[in-house]
């Protein structure tokens, strides 16, 4: 446990060493939020309600998605593909620790920083923009939102690792990741709530794991899902998580057999 705590500490120090880079990383996340926020603010102007969302509900969705997005999708696992490709993975395999634990610790550090800074940024933005926000008062719903958030986080962790593991079989690790970014940008609901899409596209989005990264936790928070839809969402999310976990285990063990430390 001490080893993994040290990895978390080391990762945080790594982030704060390059201060300009760190500041620009935070600026970038705020800019990303503002771009989507201002766009929706403009679209909703003159509408009491659009796609079944009031201005307050939509702006709450957009503002909170900026918190959920880095929390769920903030990761360092994209480095794994490069470690495999360059052969540097060998350095980690000989260390007295589990590689999965190493990756998880790096991600925890990333998410810790994200949460600390995202909360303060959202408070500042709230004070500056004064949007009408929907505040959930039911403790049960808040708890369920948190569970959905953790589920999305675990799901994304395995999803991202699997893409990096492609490095065991191909040196082209960036192209599949870029494609996954493109799909994630659209089907996670980071830009808009997925239920505004046409019925066939919404159905497609529900069958993908991206649905559970941002959209599902936020819909649970907004209290816009029926008990049945919520139960169904959690069940499918758990199936996805178990499926991706199993796939990750298989890919890791088969990948290690294919791994030749090429480049070292």
């Amino acid at each position, binding site marked *: 446990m001490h080893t993994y705590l040290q990895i978390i500490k080391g990762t945080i120090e790594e982030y704060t060493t390059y201060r300009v880079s760190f500041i620009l990383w935070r600026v970038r996340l705020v800019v990303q939020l503002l771009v989507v926020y201002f766009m929706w603010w403009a679209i909703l102007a003159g509408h009491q309600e659009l796609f079944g969302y009031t201005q307050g509900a939509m702006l709450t969705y957009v503002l909170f998605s900026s918190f959920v997005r880095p929390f769920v999708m903030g990761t360092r696992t994209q480095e794994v593909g490069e470690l495999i490709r360059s052969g540097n993975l060998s350095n980690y395999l000989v260390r007295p620790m589990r590689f999965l634990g190493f990756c998880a610790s790096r991600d925890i550090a990333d998410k810790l920083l994200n949460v600390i800074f995202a909360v303060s940024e959202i408070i500042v933005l709230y004070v500056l923009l004064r949007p009408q926000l929907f505040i959930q008062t039911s403790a049960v719903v808040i708890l369920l939102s948190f569970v959905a958030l953790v589920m999305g986080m675990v799901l994304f962790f395995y999803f991202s690792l699997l893409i990096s593991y492609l490095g065991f079989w191909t040196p082209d690790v960036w192209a*599949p990741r870029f494609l996954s970014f493109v799909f994630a940008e*659209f089907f996670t609901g980071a830009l808009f709530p997925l239920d505004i899409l*046409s019925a066939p596209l919404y159905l497609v989005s529900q069958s993908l794991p991206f649905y559970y990264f941002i959209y599902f936790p936020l819909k649970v928070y907004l209290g816009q899902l029926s008990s049945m839809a919520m139960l169904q969402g959690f069940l499918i999310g758990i199936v996805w998580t178990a499926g991706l976990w199993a796939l990750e285990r298989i890919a890791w063990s088969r990948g290690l057999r294919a791994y030749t430390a090429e480049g070292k």
Partner: protein
Amino acid sequence: MSMFMRYVRIWWMLTVSSFMISLVSRFNAGVFFVGKFLRFLFFLIFLLTVFSRTETLAGYTVNQMVFFYLSFSLVDTIAQLFFREVYRFRSLIVSGDFDFALIKPMNPLLRVLVGGADPLDLGMLPLYIAAVIYTGGRLGDVSWVNVVFYFILLINGLIISTGFHILVLALGILATEVDHAIMIFRDVVSMGRIPMDVYHEPLRTTMTFVIPVGVMMTFPAKALMGLLSPWMVIFSIALGLLFFVLCLKAWHYALFQYSSASS
């Protein structure tokens, strides 16, 4: 003139090399190309979804809004096609390899700005050009003067985009940071996917004239629709040139600060 032709030849050689490197892996190139197409398609679907519930947005029809998005995609893709090397600049600074660009008998800015064109963006261009012509033809009566203004302001947009990329390079030298800076630029520029008139004040004026994203991305389309006066076209060109000169000054300042610390 001979100096210009010399640089054109150098650029051509660098571009051919860059294309060959990018196309070594057909799988990689294919997946990136599909990704770029899907990214374009997904935002288009989003726009059409929004318009499925509203007739106009800030007075613009769905055709006009799609045309704004296509013009944005055109400028954005041409900029990425030429300036892809900027995305790789940080490693040159951190490793000290930028020294090799400095000692060569050519302008180092040319090497780090346009030294690595991206063939995948070239592949997307015919699609955008065809879509711009098709959608432009459905906008109604468009005069030849407005078409000329459109092309002039497209070039002006590219000049402003060049300025932004030079600014990122300057920041790369001063703070060894490029990756986040270039992505911030892309996020900010993405606001130009829809006309600035849609946004509220003071954001609208700021994004149009202070950070000239509006002039760069949305003014060409507005000119074609006849929504810009000739004076505004002249003002936009002056603003674009002024911005470019200021960015060049920032580059020269940064170059003097370069200490080759890592080499």
